[in-house]
């Protein structure tokens, strides 16, 4: 196991936080054994959390403090649907780059429509297996795969970036490659492979070690194999060797109770956002993040490389004030004895339980997604994108794809090229079309049909330009 050498932070935090991570709720409808926030335990316990009004005040303050980025998470944040949407819209309107973490279950058309109007939003959707059998065995809820895939399709159809979070465990790693292939066919923006971080539920035990060199090879091969879909490997995980938080804090995390921490892998709290206000909590972080007791915890983490063996474990030890960084054996024992919800028995045998069936579904959704021209001006084989000033040249086949999708579906474009080249293997044409659509969409030349905003194209695809 590789481990970074521990060193004390060499810099100071900024005067105001750059980012805020808001855990709007403890509750979750999934039952993951590795949940880093231990949400299944809190769901059963109905652990109290802040009111909508409290969160509105916190979000107002985050914006006025100058936060540039925000993460809306949980639990499953869309269990507090109206609150989640309201704060995402508020943050986006203020120009704060916002991320929503969700399992996708509650992303219906109405939610997707509202999220699509937030132009700076990315949505992270959990997907642990290529197949429903593997994903649902991991997440413990039947139907989770199809709901998650449907959520991704709804969001992609509206031009909302979808970043798949793939928790890699000994039980899911055999499907990682098939999952990446599925994501590419579905058209997802990127895939982040995340070996388990042993905090919260994952710190109760279990073997979370996975083949990290194999995951790194996927990262290296992704540009050629799944072009336009970056594949990332989250570092700082058990497979990589945990590095302590060696840099000065840039942001802050607000727990569902209002307790403020620096980040997810630090157990110490610095006041309560609802009681003290975010600004006062940030001052506590600035003054206290490098106190000797906290740096000692950090140093031990750097030496041990295993969060689960620390005397204080994030999300198992719920409230550890930074100025009294201790917990009791009784408190830890109570957490470990707390009831957990049962996972549904595995054994899904539906149409998506096999890799072939799951891939067929992803291809079907990808091929039926509709597109239209973006705000562009076309002259023969050349296209100008007024928003960027870029000019792009398309060859005959790329022009055929653009034409078939203006408006039309990816499937229409495949049919167009296949008709012109009947002896060409359809599988090759399909891959070329998918890659071309990614390429055109990345430049704003094509947009998903349900995307918000944008200037509608005229009949010939040329917009009214301001000159």
């Amino acid at each position, binding site marked *: 196991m590789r481990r970074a050498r521990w060193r004390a932070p060499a810099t100071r935090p900024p005067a105001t936080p750059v980012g805020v991570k808001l855990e709007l709720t403890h509750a979750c409808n999934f039952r993951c054994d590795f949940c880093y926030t231990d949400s299944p335990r809190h769901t059963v316990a109905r652990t109290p959390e802040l009111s909508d009004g409290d969160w509105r005040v916190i979000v107002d303050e985050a914006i006025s403090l100058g936060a540039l980025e925000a993460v809306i998470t949980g639990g499953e944040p869309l269990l507090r649907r109206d609150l989640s949407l309201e704060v995402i819209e508020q943050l986006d309107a203020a120009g704060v780059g916002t991320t929503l973490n969700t399992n996708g279950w509650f992303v219906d058309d109405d939610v997707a429509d509202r999220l699509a109007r937030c132009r700076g939003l990315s949505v992270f959707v959990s997907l642990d297996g290529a197949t429903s059998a593997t994903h649902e065995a991991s997440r413990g809820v039947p139907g989770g795969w199809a709901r998650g895939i449907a959520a991704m399709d709804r969001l992609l159809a509206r031009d909302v970036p979808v970043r798949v979070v793939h928790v890699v465990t000994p039980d899911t790693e055999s499907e990682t490659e098939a999952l990446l292939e599925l994501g590419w066919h579905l058209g997802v923006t990127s895939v982040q492979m995340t070996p388990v971080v042993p905090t919260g539920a994952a710190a109760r035990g279990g073997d979370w070690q996975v083949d990290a060199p194999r995951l790194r090879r996927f990262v290296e091969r992704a540009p050629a194999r799944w*072009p*336009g879909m970056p594949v990332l490997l989250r570092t700082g995980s058990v497979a990589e060797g945990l590095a302590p938080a060696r840099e000065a804090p840039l942001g802050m995390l607000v727990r569902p109770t209002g307790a403020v921490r620096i980040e997810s892998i630090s157990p110490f709290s610095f006041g309560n956002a609802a009681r003290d206000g975010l600004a006062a909590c940030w001052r506590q972080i600035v003054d206290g993040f490098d106190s000797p007791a906290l740096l000692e915890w950090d140093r031990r983490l750097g030496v041990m490389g295993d969060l689960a063996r620390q005397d204080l474990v994030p999300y198992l030890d719920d409230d550890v004030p930074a100025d009294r960084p201790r917990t009791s054996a009784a408190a830890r024992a109570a957490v470990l004895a707390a009831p957990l919800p049962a996972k549904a028995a595995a054994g899904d045998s539906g149409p998506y339980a096999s890799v072939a069936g799951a891939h067929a579904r992803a291809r079907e959704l990808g091929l039926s997604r509709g597109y239209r021209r973006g705000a562009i001006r076309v002259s023969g084989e*050349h296209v100008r994108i007024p928003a960027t*000033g*870029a*000019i*792009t*040249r*398309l*060859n*005959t*086949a*790329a022009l*055929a*794809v653009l034409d078939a999708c203006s408006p039309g579906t990816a499937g229409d474009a495949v049919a167009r*090229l296949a008709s*012109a*080249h*009947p*002896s*060409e293997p359809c599988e090759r*044409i399909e891959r*070329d*079309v998918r*890659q*071309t659509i*990614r*390429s*055109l969409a990345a*430049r704003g030349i094509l947009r998903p049909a349900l995307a918000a905003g944008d200037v509608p194209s005229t009949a010939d695809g040329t917009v009214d330009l301001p000159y």
Partner: protein
Amino acid sequence: MDQHDSQDTQYEPPVVEDLDTAEAPSSVSGGVVTTIG
């Protein structure tokens, strides 16, 4: 070769090529970045 094949032109994969517009709007000068697809 049957009639079906005879109508099949050589397949050329889609190419999306960004032109150099560093001195735009009056200096388009050929492709510098080529992305297949």
